[in-house]
């Protein structure tokens, strides 16, 4: 028998960036908010032993415990989906802060082009630029509409950067803090890309260049360039994360409680409204029902989609007919790039997660695609994140992967290798989608989410073209040997690639083709909101967090408005 708790105004499922932002904004307005977090509490003090590559980066200390829950995967519909038994291609988070704890801190705004990609592609290249199986669609919101929310997130997070990129959208205000230090390695990239006629700029970073107090009064410290960001928490409180910003801001109102070890298994509904959520205490396995006026799904892409599916809210996407929206337009990213081997030793072990320089000359539609067989592109960056010795064993071509020659080459080149990499935008495809698995279940007896995904021709063409650009840059940087990344074939869930999963609960202007409206309010259930990278109708050429943060502020505004007036917000 489930125990029913006292009703609250707002319940969020998961406490990362989105759950924290919504809690802070709603609690400031006087709404009573409860955050349900399946993981545990943690804070800066818990990261004091974090300079441990093996524990955090190899053994995934901060990541999801897959013995409790994972996803299943297949490349295509004619395969049997099997569980992702070990973490690989992407790293799912868990615990207070979620993926906002173990992110690198690159903080981007998607391009104006991204939000209107379908209209702009059709207008410029005609309606047949991509074959019909690419399910490109506009997001139901424009960059200009979203700009104030981008601005708000950047001020909350104290983002360090410089407004020198000619290709991105107009900013209403400057970055809250100046860019990070331009190291000698970054200068190498800057000189090379400038020589090639491109426009490099310092990457917008949540590893702050200086100490900062945000508008909520939270203090964020200055980055020490210690080289342990991605997959790690920051022991200085210098990598902006939910647990040092929005979560304490929400708690300070007195209107916010977080319940830990609380794994939500169902969104409860009655007619065309949701009534709350059912969750299981992961320690005692007791069941609880948390009634709420408004339910907000603020967990990761995968789990947001899964909860809607198991709760039978919305119409499942059907790849045969193209109908339905839930699970549709899942997209990943592709990673073109090049490595360069140099003669001199470099300080590659120093760095920070978002210490980098970037060019956008091949991102979005900033270059002409008339004679190219793909749309969109990639931001190309060089980052100095702190190379660590287990994972970093760079080998020139034809070097064996073990034995005497391996040892010599991997040690020699550890401090003599640089890489430039692109984050390739992935376009949605009819055959790439999320659904529920029919065989495998999580430890609570709920079906696992099933991912059906493969790279498409568009991805492969983009990868090839952008890798060629990366090779040219690395050659200009003066490497004695330059190696471009191998062409991609089938998507493989084993090697780590990127945690930038998107889609499945996409936003849009039409209930027939999207799950939520542009306030992230569910089309079918007006008191249900779903927010995160799952809202992206396609994946762009950047890290998602900045855009996720903006959508969360947009969503919070919608919830507050809904709490006052009710009804559909659009």
């Amino acid at each position, binding site marked *: 028998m489930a125990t029913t708790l006292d009703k609250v105004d707002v319940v969020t499922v998961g406490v990362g960036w989105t759950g924290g932002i919504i809690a802070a904004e709603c609690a400031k307005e006087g709404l009573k908010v409860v955050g349900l977090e399946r993981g545990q509490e943690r804070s800066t003090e818990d990261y*004091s*032993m974090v*300079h*441990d*590559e*093996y*524990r955090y980066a*190899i*053994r*995934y200390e901060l990541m999801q*415990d*897959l*013995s409790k*829950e994972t996803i299943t*995967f*297949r*490349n295509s519909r004619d*395969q*049997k989906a*099997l*569980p*992702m*038994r*070990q973490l*690989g291609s992407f790293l799912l988070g868990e615990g207070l802060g979620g993926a906002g704890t173990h992110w690198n801190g690159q903080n981007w705004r998607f391009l104006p082009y991204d939000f209107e990609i379908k209209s702009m592609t059709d207008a410029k290249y005609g309606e047949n630029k991509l074959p019909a199986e690419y399910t490109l669609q506009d997001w139901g919101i424009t960059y200009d509409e979203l700009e104030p929310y981008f601005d708000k997130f950047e001020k909350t997070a104290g983002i360090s950067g410089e407004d020198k990129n000619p290709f991105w959208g107009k900013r209403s205000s400057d970055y809250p803090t100046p860019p990070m*230090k331009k*190291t*000698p390695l970054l200068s190498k990239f800057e000189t090379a890309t400038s020589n090639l006629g491109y426009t490099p700029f310092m990457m917008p970073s949540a590893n702050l260049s200086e100490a900062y107090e945000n508008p909520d009064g939270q203090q964020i410290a200055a*980055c*020490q*360039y*210690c*080289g342990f960001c991605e997959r790690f928490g920051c022991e200085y409180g210098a990598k902006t994360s939910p647990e040092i910003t929005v979560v304490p801001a929400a708690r300070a109102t007195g209107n916010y409680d977080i319940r830990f070890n609380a794994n939500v298994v169902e969104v409860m509904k009655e007619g065309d409204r949701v009534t709350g959520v059912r969750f299981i205490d992961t320690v005692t396995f007791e069941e609880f029902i948390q009634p709420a006026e408004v339910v907000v799904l603020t967990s990761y892409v995968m789990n947001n989609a899964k909860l809607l599916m198991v709760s039978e809210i919305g119409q499942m996407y059907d790849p045969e007919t193209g109908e339905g929206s839930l699970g549709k337009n899942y997209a990943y990213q592709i990673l073109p790039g090049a490595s360069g081997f140099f003669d*001199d*030793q*470099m*300080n590659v*072990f*120093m*760095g920070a997660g978002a210490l980098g320089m970037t060019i956008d000359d091949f991102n979005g539609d900033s270059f002409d695609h008339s004679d190219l067989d793909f749309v969109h592109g990639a931001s190309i960056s060089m980052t100095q994140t702190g190379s*660590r*010795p*287990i994972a970093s*064993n760079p080998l020139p071509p034809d070097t064996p*992967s*073990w*034995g*005497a020659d*391996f*040892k*010599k080459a991997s*040690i020699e080149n*550890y*401090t003599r290798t640089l890489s430039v990499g692109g984050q390739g935008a992935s376009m949605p495809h009819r055959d790439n989608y999320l659904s529920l698995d029919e065989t*495998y*279940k999580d430890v609570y007896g709920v079906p696992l989410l099933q991912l059906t995904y493969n790279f498409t021709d568009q991805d492969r063409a983009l990868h090839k073209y952008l890798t060629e650009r990366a090779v040219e840059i690395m050659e200009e940087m003066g490497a004695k040997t330059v190696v471009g990344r191998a062409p991609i074939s089938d*998507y*493989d*869930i*084993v090697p780590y690639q990127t945690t930038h999963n998107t889609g499945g609960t996409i936003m849009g202007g039409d209930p027939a083709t999207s799950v939520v409206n542009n306030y992230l309010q569910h089309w079918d259930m007006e008191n249900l909101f779903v927010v995160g990278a799952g809202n992206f109708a396609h994946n762009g050429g950047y890290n998602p967090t900045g855009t996720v943060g903006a959508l969360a502020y947009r969503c919070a505004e919608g919830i507050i408005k809904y709490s006052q007036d009710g009804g559909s917000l659009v």
Partner: protein
Amino acid sequence: MAEKKNVSRRDFLKTSGIAAGALVGGGIIGGVIGANTRQDTAAPSGGSAGQSGGAETTEAVRGLQFFKNQQEFAVLQQATERIFPEDDLGPGAIGLGVPFFIDHQLAGSYGENSREYMQPPFQVGEATQGYQSRLKRNELFRQGLQKMQQEAQSRFEANFVDLEGEQMDEILTAFQDDEVDMQGANAQFFFRLLRQATLNGAYADPIYGGNQNMDAWRMKGFPGHRPSYINEIESEEFVEFDPHSVGDMLS
């Protein structure tokens, strides 16, 4: 030499009738079986020279937590040494303590796959779908090492540990190329695991029992745990640091 001592330890344990619990922490353990210890009663101190005063350092007691069979561990030692051999740059896997690191990891959550999805049904999938065996890593390691020994016998009529380096490499390559039959898993996957575990043990923080004396970090020029590089991050020159373990924070 070390093997002889370990045999006597085994005999001792077999014949003494002393419960394991009585051994742990008592002076008797160091005196009888602590092949690597120079001080027989002290608890492992973390090995800092300052604590023991002078040049003589205190080393932790080393022993096997997972492997029960000397031969399997000996195969592991030689196999990891072939993957990461001693050379003019510095020690190899054995000198760095990698086999002990792997043994300890196999005894714990890594070996038990305790944070991985291990629910049935187990089915053979596409390579792109990743590991689908019901075998835990420690089961896979034992089987793999036993298979290496069997390969040595069938190919060269000798124990793996007595082979020439090139002969060991031939066997390792056969695993790498998936040319050895294993039960419930494939040889290539085992080889990748063995290779990765070897690198983990070489380069992980020494708190895990590998990377002894931080020599692998010294070879590679990695400083380990340092709180900050803010004063060096803009240096045009390569900066060398004496490495530090994250364990230093507790001393």
